[in-house]
């Protein structure tokens, strides 16, 4: 199956769900959908496109929205499913029902971006170190780390 074949067949299968489809580089397909369609899309990709392997979920802070990219790897291409949630109400459905291996990445998103993944099998909060303060999400762009001064023991100066 070539890239164009995949794009064409994705257009057919997803219909109105696929908001945007692009093929910027060989073996790379970017697909944009609404957050609500995530689980359905993941199921379709898994069953029809041999994309049972979820490589990872990347998140990016795009100002007003958080953008999440689900990288599905099939033997012929990487299909990246892109979805955006508003910063004011960061909620995302879980796809663990379709792809159990997604749990680690979803928990990672909860930690780093402070989104709520709804329907995640293990919904306990996963924070950074034990002493990490509440409400701090390091990968948000407005979060800045303040360095502590390093004290070198011993010696002069």
């Amino acid at each position, binding site marked *: 199956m070539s890239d164009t074949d995949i794009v064409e067949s994705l257009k057919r299968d997803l219909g109105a769900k696929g908001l945007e489809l692009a093929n910027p580089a060989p073996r790379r397909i970017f697909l944009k959908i609404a957050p609500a369609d995530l689980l359905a899309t993941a199921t379709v990709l898994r069953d029809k496109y041999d994309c049972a392997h979820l490589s990872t979920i990347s998140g990016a802070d795009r100002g007003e929205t958080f953008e999440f990219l689900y990288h599905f790897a099939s033997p012929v291409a990487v299909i990246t499913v892109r979805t955006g949630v508003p910063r004011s109400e960061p909620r995302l459905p879980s796809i663990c029902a379709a792809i159990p291996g997604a749990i680690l990445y979803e928990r990672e998103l909860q930690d780093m971006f402070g989104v709520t993944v709804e329907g995640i099998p293990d919904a306990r909060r996963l924070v*950074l*170190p034990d*002493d990490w303060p509440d409400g701090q999400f*390091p990968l948000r762009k407005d979060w800045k780390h303040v360095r502590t001064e390093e004290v070198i023991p011993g010696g002069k100066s």
Partner: protein
Amino acid sequence: MLNKLTRWSRIKSPWILHLNSGACNACDIEILAALTPRFDVERFGILLKATPRHADVIIASGPVTRQIKDRIIRIYDQTPEPKFVIAVGACAMAGCVYRGAYNIMGGIDQVIPVNMYVPGCPARPDAIIDGVVKLLGKL
């Protein structure tokens, strides 16, 4: 006389504990490589021990992450006196490329006292041996 004997035995039989405090593995494989036939630190009576209770020298690698800080202090406390710490690699000394990351405390010396610094990224096995030998020479 007794002191001399104790000092001699301490120099001749340093047992090490390998402590990874969030390193990238490079220093760890080089520490392990120092045990293997090419370098074979058993020549100096150095044995890699599993528990801090048996160890004399803690060889630490890696920048200290916030999560592991308490563990390092605990392991340091568990090691019976006299004990020495060698920081191996740029991360263990000053944090290396991770300087300024939010989850890094800095070098090992920000948490526990360090007796010897071995620079390198990673330090070659012979540089590590050199560090151990310099430490023993100091005793």
